[in-house]
């Protein structure tokens, strides 16, 4: 009798554990669009005259990228991610790449996971220094002359923070270090899509470098697609 009970209990535990650990099935999707209301500040053209090797790469000076908008009041460079309700994901083996080209950062916002490798490369004719400015992670500052190998780094805590080059004061970017693989940085059109979400209650957060962040709760019960929108209040300055 005792033995039978132990066996049953053991089996029950195994079944539960297996069900919990099993990879997520093709689940639900949360998608939508990020827009702004009000008048955003006008982006000024960047004066690169102090760095002729970069200035000559542009026929017209590029605009600053603090606020990038598109058709239909859409907002680019917004990090949309699951901030609660999803477990941490395994570290991807591919590196996220951050490029300095034309004395600008490509992409303007780089999103990647905790402990994922990032590779920073310099494709310009001038030296840059890479100076990410985290408050929770460790702050470092490295020089990267042209023709030197990519810098390989990683961050072990979730945080979103700016990156700058001190030599070229107009260069601004952001790193978003996230805990799971459910994230998107909006592009032209401001749309985002977070698929493969198992049933559960999720908090979706949208972060913009100038307009701050907002969160919404979304519940997925099966494999449905839910649509949400984020609307940021634009500042005229």
């Amino acid at each position, binding site marked *: 009798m005792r033995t039978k009970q132990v066996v049953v209990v053991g089996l029950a535990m195994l079944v539960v554990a297996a069900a919990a650990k099993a990879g997520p099935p093709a689940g639900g999707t949360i998608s939508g669009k990020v827009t702004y209301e009000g008048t955003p500040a006008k982006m000024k053209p960047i004066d690169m005259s102090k760095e002729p090797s970069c200035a000559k790469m542009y026929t017209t000076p590029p605009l600053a990228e603090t606020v990038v908008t598109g058709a239909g009041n859409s907002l680019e460079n917004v990090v949309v991610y699951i901030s609660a309700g999803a477990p941490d994901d395994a570290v991807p083996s591919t590196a996220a790449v951050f490029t300095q080209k034309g004395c600008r950062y490509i992409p303007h916002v780089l999103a990647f996971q905790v402990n994922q490798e990032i590779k920073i490369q310099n494709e310009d004719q001038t030296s840059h220094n890479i100076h990410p400015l985290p408050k929770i992670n460790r702050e470092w500052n*490295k020089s990267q002359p042209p023709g*030197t190998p990519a810098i390989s780094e990683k961050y072990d805590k979730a945080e979103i923070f700016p990156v700058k080059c001190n030599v*070229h004061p107009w260069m601004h970017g952001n790193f978003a270090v996230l805990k799971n693989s459910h994230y998107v940085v909006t592009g032209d059109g401001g749309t985002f899509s977070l698929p493969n979400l198992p049933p559960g209650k999720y908090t979706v957060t949208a972060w913009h470098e100038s307009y701050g962040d907002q969160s919404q709760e979304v519940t997925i019960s099966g494999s449905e697609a839910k649509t949400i929108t984020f609307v940021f209040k634009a500042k005229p300055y």
Partner: protein
Amino acid sequence: MANKTIKKFCLNAAIALVLPFGLMAQLDQAPAAKPNPNEESHIGDLAGHAHAGAELYYRYCWGCHGARGNGDGENAPYVTPTPRNFVAAVFKCRSTPTGTLPLDSDLYNSIGRGFNFTNMPSWITLTAQNRADLVAFIKTFSARWVTEKPGTPIEIPAEPKLTIESIKHGGERYQKLECWKCHGQEGRGDGPSASTLTDSNDQPIRPYNFTSDNRSKCGKTNADLYRIFMTGLDGTPMPSFADVVKPEDAWDLVHYLRTLQYNNPSPELALWESTPEGKAIVAAKKVENTNTGSGIKP
């Protein structure tokens, strides 16, 4: 008899179902690390203790560095650059690589030396034991000292013989590495990027002016100068060149930088001025009949 068995079974099944979830929930929650109030410091044979350092801190340091050690003391609004924030634990003068914590001896030396061109005086008037105790107390402001070990100090090879070739090669490095972008062609701190520099708190900051004198931030010796560009001054625009400068080139650069400090007599400057080329370059830079001769060009 059957009822009892069923009851027992249900109870066991309930426990079996709940237990794994309980365990997994626990694994998700890692408590945030807290600073250690009983930090110690070790500098050579000297051992410092935080509780002894606390008294000294609240007598001598908190006016600038703040009651909570985050650099917001009473004097802080009137002080440029702003006082060190011990909660952030990002330090300028280290023997360890960029992004890592300094050694206890780095902090000890900083307290004793003070920081030139800032409001941080030399505290050499305090005893060695006092300064060691202060180092221990400073570490109680940040949990970084609990979760991270200080970096491994960089290896500094023996300084090679001083030669004209070394100085000239250092000059080539200065050009190639684009030091002049901030420090200027003559090292006056007036390069094209100098006026836009800000530190990590977005406060304006000036690059070092080599022509001012010999008092650079982190000490007077050639090894101190070597360390500055091979570990970077964390929290400032000055990066680490450790990944892109070979140690022998680094020593050449140190020799060249000494010739930029033309108001500071040194073996490097003397050797440089003993050549016609070097003499002409230095003479062109020296400005006569000014208050300080410190390099203000008319």
